[in-house]
């Protein structure tokens, strides 16, 4: 589903590459934690998957497409196969929960009927039934993140990317979000989650890829956060 072949990414004006010759393979339906300190290359990894950047060297394949060669006008199509969740939720403050989720479908041209069917379904899946008419600022942080997950998942993407999704949440709420991501993963969606949250990684016992200074220093099935073999 996601495949990095000897990928190097150097940003203009920076002598050291953000990613240095890494090769990673993520299969369909996998759940992968991407761990490492700030500046280790996690964000660059995710941005390459989203084709916000092209790699400097090497090849990146996402959902069967080689993103190096993907024409700009085809990028929107690629992104419809990828859902994205961020630490800061990124909800539109002037729209209700339902509208926020529906927005993702509206702007890719889905019909009103389809939106009407799918959005409540997705809100139910993330546990927000009955809160569709609330505004984002009337919700708790955990609930806001659920809205963001609903928005990322409403188009049933093949891949879900989560960049520190629990970074702004307390531990109990974080567990709820992790359960939600796990449920989404069980529907067959590949999940890649960058995180600093060691307790979550330790609890979930999923594959862990650790980056350090642009290198993959660990790739472990059912791993934990810290260095353990």
């Amino acid at each position, binding site marked *: 589903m996601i495949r990095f072949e000897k990928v190097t990414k150097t940003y203009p004006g920076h002598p050291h590459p953000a990613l240095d010759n890494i090769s990673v393979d993520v299969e369909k339906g996998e759940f992968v934690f991407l761990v490492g300190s700030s500046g280790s290359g996690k964000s660059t990894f995710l941005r390459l998957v*989203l084709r916000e950047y092209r790699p400097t060297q090497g090849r990146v394949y996402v959902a069967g497409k080689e993103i190096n060669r993907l024409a*700009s*006008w085809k*990028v*929107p*199509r*690629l*992104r*419809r*196969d*990828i859902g*994205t969740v961020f630490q800061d939720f*990124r909800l*539109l403050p002037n729209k209700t929960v339902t509208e926020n989720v529906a*927005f*993702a479908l*509206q*702007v*890719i*041209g*889905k*019909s*009103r009927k389809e939106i009407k069917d799918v959005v409540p379904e997705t809100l139910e899946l993330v546990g927000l039934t009955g809160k569709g008419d609330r505004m984002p600022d009337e919700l708790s942080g955990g609930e806001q993140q659920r809205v963001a997950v609903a*928005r990322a998942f409403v*188009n049933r993407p093949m891949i879900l990317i989560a960049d520190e999704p629990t970074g702004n949440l307390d531990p109990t709420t974080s567990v709820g979000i992790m359960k939600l991501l796990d449920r989404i993963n069980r529907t067959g969606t590949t999940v890649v989650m960058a995180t600093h949250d060691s307790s979550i990684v330790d609890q979930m016992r999923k594959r862990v890829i650790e980056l350090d200074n642009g290198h993959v220093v660990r790739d472990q099935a059912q791993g934990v956060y810290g260095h353990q073999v």
Partner: protein
Amino acid sequence: MQLRYVYTELGQGLRRNLSMHLAVILTLFVSLTLVGMGVLFQQQATKAAEQWGNQLQITVFLCRNGDSNPVCPSAVTDAQKAEIETVVKDNPEVADYHFESSETALEKAKELYGEELFSGDNPAITAEDMPQTIWITLDDPEQFEGITSAVQGLDGVSRVQDMRKVIAPILGALSMLQWVALVTAAVLVVAALLLVANTIRLAAFARRKEIGIMRLVGASTLYIALPFLLEALVTAIIGVVLAGGALAAVQQFGIEGRGDDTLKFIPWIGWEEFRLALLTVAVLGPLLTLLPTLVLTRKYLKV
């Protein structure tokens, strides 16, 4: 495609950036009006040149009955005409010439001054009153003195008019007005382009959250740019309508109303020429806003 979002965004965008949009509309209005005026002046110059011949021409007025010039005891005779023609034909400076009868001169006059003067039982002017003329086109407009002096003294010639003396100042004034209008318009067009660019930058900034999400969920570039393009189109249309109105007012009150009465000897442009000016403005207006929008949305909204 679901366009509900696009229309709400369009409305919001127009309200949110109202002062910038007004600035764009006003600048467009003035610059388009000036472009339109430039077109009108140019048409006016062409029309004047058509009526009087171009600047290369000189006109030889032949004697007529009751000519005020003492060298003309009576109307020009056929023999005198033949003599004059020989002189004109043999002159090396003459590129071309043609006779114009009194009747043709009368028709031209009618076109300028209207039928009333020339009709009825006792018309003020008849073909008899109009002189016959020879219109001479020169090879080199600077070399008019030779032919003028050659023809001047001949029997049957009342006077020689170098049309450049009549037309040059009028054409000169028209051409100057045209250039003043077009140069001012060009400066304002640059101002309009900069304003459009600024407006887009502000709008893109105001919508950065929405735009970020749209890019992430895979909205097409066109879809993201559409509200911007529609905003540009709306401001262009308002600008064009205002400029069209101003030009129509100039045409109606300036030309049809006043110039036509007080400066009758000039053949004035009509609504047909106005339509051309309007068309120019209607094409230019949307181009001026849509082109920078297309370029800048590509820059600011890059996927």
